[in-house]
């Protein structure tokens, strides 16, 4: 297991390197960012001087090598717009996104897994069909529309929830989170609900399919024959069987929500990394874009590693070192 982890981490590092080249070349191809950042009333000599000072007149490979040299020391560049270190900005804003995504995933799992189990166990009952339909609606509705509807109804019409932003945070055991305050809850409710539709729909459909597949297997038939209750069968036997594909997909969905929950964060003015990246793309803040994409690659690599290890732990049939 240890060797496996080390090998995977090494692969992750290679992936980061490849990604950094790709991202750098792609952003470089867009052109000189200075004209957009600098005040247009600046005289030409100031513009030229700034280009020179930021090293933007050097050829591509020189700029990339300079970036690489700084990156291995942990310096991923300084934001063009706010002059803050890019990595620090991302790390500072990450807890807000993590908190929102974990809340959304928890809601999605807690509601989605039981619903999916029911839909799979009794697919032709009215409840089963209703669950199937709801899951399709959940995937189809655009999240910015749902978000704006939630704000219009609950914040503007009824005035019971705030229109956006993150609430007050409190610290418990060294972890700071807005989930520990009542004000924080009122701020996180709507964005979390907005964000949970997509993963919930995926969980319902996956669980349902998994149940359908497993319900005909021998050990379930034997359990039915023995007279075990449906609940015991569902939660005790079927759920563990479908947990492998479920966890794998959930890992990917978790990563996607973390890195690209941009729409929800924008609509609800949630100060997370999604809002950060969209602003950076719009303003051409290259260091943030590069740092963010590398961060995302690392995130996905780590999540996938965790998911693989988790699956190996859950299912003793899986061998990490490959089949012998």
């Amino acid at each position, binding site marked *: 297991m240890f060797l496996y982890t080390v090998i995977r981490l090494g692969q992750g590092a290679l992936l980061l390197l490849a990604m950094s080249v790709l991202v750098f070349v792609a952003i470089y191809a867009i052109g*000189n960012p200075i004209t957009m950042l600098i005040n247009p009333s600046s005289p030409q000599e100031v513009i030229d001087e700034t280009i020179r000072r930021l090293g933007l007149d050097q050829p591509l490979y020189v700029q990339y090598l300079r970036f690489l040299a700084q990156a291995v020391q942990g310096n991923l560049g300084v934001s063009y717009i706010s002059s803050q270190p890019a990595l620090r900005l991302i790390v500072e804003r990450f807890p807000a996104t993590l908190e929102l995504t974990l809340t959304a995933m928890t809601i999605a799992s807690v509601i989605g897994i039981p619903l999916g189990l029911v839909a799979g166990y009794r697919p032709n009952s009215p409840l089963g069909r209703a669950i199937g339909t709801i899951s399709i609606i959940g995937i189809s509705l655009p999240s910015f529309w749902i978000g704006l509807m939630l704000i219009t109804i609950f914040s503007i019409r009824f005035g019971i929830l705030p229109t956006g*932003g993150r609430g007050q945070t409190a610290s418990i055991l060294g972890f700071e989170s807005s989930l520990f305050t009542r004000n924080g809850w009122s701020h996180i409710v709507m964005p979390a609900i907005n964000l949970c539709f997509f993963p919930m729909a995926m969980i319902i459909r996956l669980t349902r399919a998994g149940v359908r597949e497993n319900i005909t297997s021998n050990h379930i038939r034997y359990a039915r024959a023995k007279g075990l209750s449906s609940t015991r069968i569902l939660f005790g036997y079927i759920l563990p069987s479908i947990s492998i594909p479920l966890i794998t997909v959930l890992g990917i969905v978790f990563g996607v929500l973390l890195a690209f929950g941009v729409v929800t964060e924008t609509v609800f003015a949630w100060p997370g990394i999604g809002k950060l990246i969209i602003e950076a793309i719009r303003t051409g803040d290259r260091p943030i874009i590069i740092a963010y994409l590398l961060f995302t690659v690392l995130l996905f690599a780590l999540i996938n590693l965790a998911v693989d290890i988790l699956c190996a732990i859950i299912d003793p049939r899986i061998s990490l070192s490959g089949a012998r």
Partner: protein
Amino acid sequence: MKKVILRALVCAGLSLSLPTLSHSADLTIGARAELAMDPHSQWLDTNTAYYNHIYSALTKIDEKSQIGPDLALSWQTVSPTEWHFKLRPGIKFHNDEALTARDVVASIQRARTLPNATSPYTGAISSVQDVSAIDDLTVSVKTTRADPALLYGLGYISIIPESLTKATTDSFNTGTSVIGSGPYKFVSYRAGDRIVMERNPGYYGAKPRWDKVMFRFIADDGARVAALLGGDVDLIDFVPPRLIERLKSAPNVNVFTGVSDRPIYLIMDTERDDSPFIRGSNGEKLTKNPLKDRRVREALTIGIDRNLMAKRVMEGAAEPASQPVAPHFAYSNPSVPMPGYNVDEAKKLMAAAGYPNGFSLSVHCTNDRYVNDEKICQAIGQMLSRVGLKMDVQTLPRSVFFPMATNHKPEGRYSFLLLGYASSGDAGFFPNALHSYSAEKKLGSWNLGHYSNAEVDAAIGRGLAASDLKGRYAAFSDAIKVAMDDRALIPLYTQSVVVATKKGLSYTTWANERTIADSASAN
């Protein structure tokens, strides 16, 4: 006797409770733009709006973009290249340090030499050669050339204590070094979320209106408007035109509109004979560039209905413009007539110029820089189609548009594009955007069509050499008249500033679109 005692007790009780009756006045603003915490790192007008609250400068601009004294009570030019500024006595920073000329000198030097600034303030004070303190209350500024617009540039330099000028940008980001002498003191800052300030009781100017001011950064237009409608903020800036009617009809909202400094206009390529985005009406290459013919430029100008654009496309949040400078500046020329709207006349002019069947033209605009820029672009495409041109409308994000548009090499640049260049007290539009392009002389870097007219250049040259602002403005006024007669650029409209507040508040808009807490007042 009992009644007297009773009355006395009641009065005593009332007088004790009176202090608690006075309520604290707090203001929460939903702002579109975030700020850079280091006041010398990024020269942007939206940043200066925030710095106006926390810091002072030698001079400051008012809501009509006129310059006036701030820290400097008076100034004089002892020679064309040396200015002396006399400071107000008795000013204290927020940490109770006294403000002297040494702080001013150190701050200006920091602004000129700060490393890693992507939009350095050196651009604002490029003529400054040296700054020194003559005595505790007098600052001497030496310039490389006579610069009557120096006052405007100095208004951008926030003055910080000399003891903090060695501070890194990082310590500003964490808030430890944010000490100014402005009407509000810094309280707290969360990146991407909000900044909080409180009244500075020792402020030397007009008493600050609010006890506490909080700016919440809400970049998304819809979310910002929702925050106002839901009562989470008291005031929002940069109201998008499409939501003005919605806000006007809301019972708990006031909408305030004012004229801004930002004219929007079209630039035409008048240099290249083979312009990449101009083709014949059948797509064939043309031997000469139709935009070089004044009749064609006139046809394009009168083929656009400015009133319709301002009223419908901009939904009233714009004023038709006769020239690409804002009308409230002294260098705009009132004798320049507003272009009419006449499609038949335009078609006749096109035929007279040799294009009876028109030609193909691509118009390029940003879609995320100016208010409704995408819609304006489409409107232009439609209007010019009526004149007989085959129009192709291309809108791009500004991160792609600007590098291409400002590429001065012959194979770069667009042929026909939309731009907004804010007018300012130093009239930078003329040397930067109207003068012909010259890399050596560092002029015309925003003259993106490479329009070149010797008479216009001569007038601008006279303006730059003028010893005072009046002479400069007069020469520039001549320049714009000649340029408009020759249809150098196609003026469209001047954007309006739109701000919305909750009922019970009113707001005086700023021409340079700054959001200033003290311009809001309870009524």
